């Protein structure tokens, strides 16, 4: 598998330039300039444990930048991710023509509570627990410059899961480490949870209503998952498509299993790829996943239950009525979160003169 490293690195750079942005954390730099190329995400789920793998890529420049990512639970470990897991997934679902032959060869074989602090390469990662206001204050005190939609978005997540991952990316340190533009730092979080969900609304943080959010989300589950919103449905507002759904190949699973920290990969799994291509104002939900086989992804996990649990209906209510009601109740307007660590010790954005 090590043979893959060089071509995959080249692929990563190419994708960074040509492919949709892949992200599952809010990214922002001083005054809103996003300097991280992308993050790529895998939400794997096996034996009641979510394996959340994402990567931060260095896009050049100096200073510090950050990211806030809502999590479904408290991680039991935060470690450097494997070297090729995310790239291998991209290759599985979007193989460039000149890559096909190679694939064949490979298959032959503060007040928020600080829970954890981990340094991975040029990333300082902090796992936080707290309400939206507490997380926001912690972020400000640690140099993050939050955009105006952050208060609403932080509450949106904290009301469901008060766990966040703050990642501060020191571009100067990355440059000193010799990281080249496009080099990624993978991060692997192990999170026990009853069912995984993937934060999507956070991708629009700091974006204006009409800005387009693009992301690729890979899911690896024991069974074919049920998703909410269902990609392609009206509930997804046309901003989400099911790009791949099928039994994961033995070659893929073997390759993933051979990467660092990926021993958990089961003998068989279902691979799903969801492509997000939505305007920020429409992306007001997350991706709920029922990986149990029960086929009942949670409205709450999808962020479509803003006013508390729905009362039990007196008679069976068709699911589409519930979903339609949820859509109508979701307030329109706003956008979504990212945090940017400010240069030089947390300077604030410029105010009026």
């Amino acid at each position, binding site marked *: 598998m090590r043979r893959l490293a060089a071509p995959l690195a080249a692929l990563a750079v190419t994708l960074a330039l040509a492919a949709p942005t892949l992200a599952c954390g809010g990214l922002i730099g001083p005054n809103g300039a996003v300097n991280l190329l992308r993050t790529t995400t895998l939400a794997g789920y096996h034996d009641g444990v979510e394996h959340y793998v994402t990567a931060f890529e260095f896009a050049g420049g100096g200073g510090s930048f950050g990211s806030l990512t809502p999590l479904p639970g408290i991680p039991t470990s935060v470690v450097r991710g494997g070297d090729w897991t995310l790239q291998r997934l991209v290759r599985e679902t979007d193989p460039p023509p000149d890559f096909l032959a190679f694939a064949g060869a490979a298959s032959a074989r503060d007040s928020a509570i600080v829970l954890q602090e981990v340094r991975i390469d040029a990333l300082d990662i902090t796992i936080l627990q707290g309400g939206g206001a507490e997380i926001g204050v912690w972020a400000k005190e640690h140099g993050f410059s939050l955009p105006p939609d952050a208060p609403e978005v932080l509450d949106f997540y904290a009301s469901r899961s008060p766990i966040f991952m703050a990642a501060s990316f020191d571009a100067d340190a990355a440059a000193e480490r010799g990281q080249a533009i496009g080099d990624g730092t993978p991060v692997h979080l192990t999170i026990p949870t009853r069912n995984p969900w993937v934060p999507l609304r956070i991708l629009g943080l700091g974006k204006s209503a009409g800005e387009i959010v693009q992301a690729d989300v890979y899911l690896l589950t024991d069974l074919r998952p049920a998703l909410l919103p269902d990609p392609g449905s009206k509930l997804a507002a046309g901003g989400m498509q099911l790009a791949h759904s099928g039994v994961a190949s033995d070659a893929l699973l073997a390759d993933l299993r051979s990467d660092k920290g990926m021993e958990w990969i089961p003998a068989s799994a279902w691979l799903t790829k969801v492509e997000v291509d939505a305007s920020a104002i429409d992306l007001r939900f997350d991706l709920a996943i029922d990986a149990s086989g029960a086929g009942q992804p949670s409205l709450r996990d999808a962020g479509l239950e803003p006013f508390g649990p729905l009362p039990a209906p007196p008679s069976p209510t068709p699911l589409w009525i519930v979903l339609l009601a949820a859509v109508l109740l979701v307030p329109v307007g706003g956008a979504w979160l990212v945090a940017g660590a400010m240069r030089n010790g947390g300077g604030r*954005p410029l105010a009026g003169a």
Partner: protein
Amino acid sequence: MPVLRVRSAAAALLLLAGLAAGCTPAAATRVEIRIHYSHFGPTAISVPHGVPITFVLISEDPIDHEWLLGDAAFHERHRTGTEAQHGARPNEISLPPLATIETTLTFDSPGTLQFICHFPAHEKYGMVGTLTVT
């Protein structure tokens, strides 16, 4: 546009002076403006001229905001400004996260002003309100 005379301590002194002289001073008016999810509430306020108006600015947000009150030319200057902190002038207030700040102003004539937060992207996000002086 109304003439905006800002007096916080000065307003209290004038009030005391008026009482001492046996005059009946105009009653001070308190106006509460909340900031929630980076929006002012209410966004349309009407106050009389000639009396001290105390604005109680309550930020429920965990991020920095500012409340800058003035006419179009005033806001145009602030859109391109570089002053990171306000506070020396009662119509220019910086609000730290979750802060409550009071400021008192007196308007000498009727007219219309706007209050805006000029942090990057905040005005576009909707942090704009209108103050009508009658």
